[in-house]
């Protein structure tokens, strides 16, 4: 039993002839402490799979188990509360709030979780220092470079100390050198026990993972474990 189990999951958009199949019976187990790369061409369903793993989306058919508990039937708000405790997202576009500075962006998940202000600030500072941005606490996203923004995003993903970090092409908008640095942070987090799932179309990045899941046309083609 993994930390996340996806059991024969289908995701179908639309109905009848117009129906599009994003996922066609995907089953996948991710163990605690795994570093998994989900790789596939665009439109293969890899993002949909990540959204389902990250409790952002629900399957049309099939089950998603989080630590053995079926989460595919939870309401939107129940999933939101579950999500804030267990999953941290890192996106390709960084997706920081432009009206908030680095510190406030990192505080955001804790704010929604009801963590008191002082505690939030303390933890956000620690996290930003950890990703090497201790000197950029009060900078706004538009005052930060791409790599810096992504590091803020990683700090934000770690805010509520989730067990799983999901990265959707986290290095896609960065140059090779910066991308490598970001990847290094993911690896370090993995060493500290975080479960990492990265979605990418870049085989070189996938090579860094311990486990590579190849997906095409909504089906898993194969799993390579190193």
């Amino acid at each position, binding site marked *: 039993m993994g930390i996340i189990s996806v059991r024969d999951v289908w995701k179908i958009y639309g109905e009848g002839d117009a129906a599009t199949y994003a996922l066609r019976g995907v089953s996948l187990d991710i163990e605690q402490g795994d570093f998994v790369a989900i790789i596939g061409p665009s439109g293969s369903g890899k993002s949909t799979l990540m*959204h389902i793993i*990250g409790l*952002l*989306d629900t399957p049309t058919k099939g089950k998603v188990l989080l630590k053995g508990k079926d989460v595919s039937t939870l309401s*939107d*708000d129940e999933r*939101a*509360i579950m*999500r*804030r*405790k267990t999953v*941290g*997202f890192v*996106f390709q*576009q960084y*997706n*920081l*709030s*432009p*009206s*908030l500075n680095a510190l*406030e962006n990192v505080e*955001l*998940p804790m*704010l*929604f*979780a009801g963590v008191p*202000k002082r505690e939030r600030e303390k933890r956000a500072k620690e996290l930003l220092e950890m990703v090497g941005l201790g000197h950029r606490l009060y900078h706004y996203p538009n005052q930060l470079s791409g790599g810096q923004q992504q590091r803020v995003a990683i700090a*934000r*993903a770690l*805010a*509520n100390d989730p067990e799983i970090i999901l990265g959707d092409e986290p290095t896609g908008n960065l140059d090779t050198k910066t991308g490598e640095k970001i990847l290094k942070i993911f690896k370090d987090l993995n060493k500290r026990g975080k479960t990492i799932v990265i979605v990418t179309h870049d085989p070189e990045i996938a090579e860094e993972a311990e486990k590579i899941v190849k997906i095409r046309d909504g089906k898993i083609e194969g799993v390579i474990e190193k």
Partner: protein
Amino acid sequence: MNDLFNLALKGLRHRRLRSILTIIGIIIGISAIVLLVSVSRGFQSAITQLFDQFGADIIMVIPGTDMMSMPPNPLTDRDVKAIERVNGVDYADGMTAKTVEVRVGHERRPLIVYGVTPETFTKLYGTFLETFMEDGRSFREGDKYVAIVGNDVAHKLFSDDLEVGRTIYINDRRFRIIGILKRAGDEQDDASVMIPLEAYKELLGEKEPAYLTIVAKLSPGADPEEVAEEIKKKLKQERGTEDFTVMTTEDMLNTINSILGVVSIVVLVIAIIAIIVGAVGIMNTMYMSVTERTREIGVMKAVGATKWQIMAIFLVEAGIIGAAGGLFGEAIAVSLAKLTEYAIVNYGGISYYHVYLGLDLLLGAAVFSFVVGIIAGYLPAKRAAELDPVEALRYE
């Protein structure tokens, strides 16, 4: 909630110009409402105060049944006598007027000259008049060739500034000014002259003056409504027809208040339209904000915001716009109201006029504007709350 409030405030600050423009929309509506309410309630209390001074123990009789009817038969001394015979009436007095030539030095002006009975006039209006005297005194028993003049007569209509003791000629008869009235704000009133009835009759050769108004003073303890009914009966009997109107102080007050009421309703409707326009402005801004921030909303959901939390952020934003508009609107309304008060006191001649700026009005308007904001923000906030996080994250 405090945190969501801060978050909303930061969102508003990020789109500063648009937030300010939307707030201006609310400012216009709220300041209009507050100003109108404070000015019109000021009028209401000024009029009530005026009638309080005037006394509730006064009944007026005027010729005609309404303003539209044919010129009626005038009221005469016989009517005054008849009214005085009514139980509960202490005494009554008629007031008459005509346009007559008034001369100061070589300057001649046609002015309205009122004829009044000195004793009753002073008994009736004595205390009342004191508040309206700029200088001098009211009539006394035995006064004949003396005059009380309106403010413009003393200070504006003639090249000489007239003072108490100055001589004027009415129909080439010498009169001495004994009193000058304060500005009434009404052109006709300010340009009028009052003289004792005896002199008036003599001057115009009128033995039987046609009265514009008969004022009856009630005996202490008499019920105005009952006495008014009695007067009506008596006069109808005397004149054979009901071609006159009997008004108690309360009737007059009600008439004026109902006119004021209609005016306030009309203005209030306009102000409410302004508020609705402001509210639509908020709604528009919030919809725009939700659309622009679709991806940000997706991220907030991804990091664990519930529907209610998202909704609260946008509702609070709209509420802040409303409340800010309300507070600034009130500040503007208060200054404009004070300005209006100044103008009415100094140029309108109503020295006892005060605009109404009670706490209930100011607090009510502030709460109201906040609520307007929340209501206008509800649908956009709901849309934000119900966005599908996956779709929202994909939004470009």
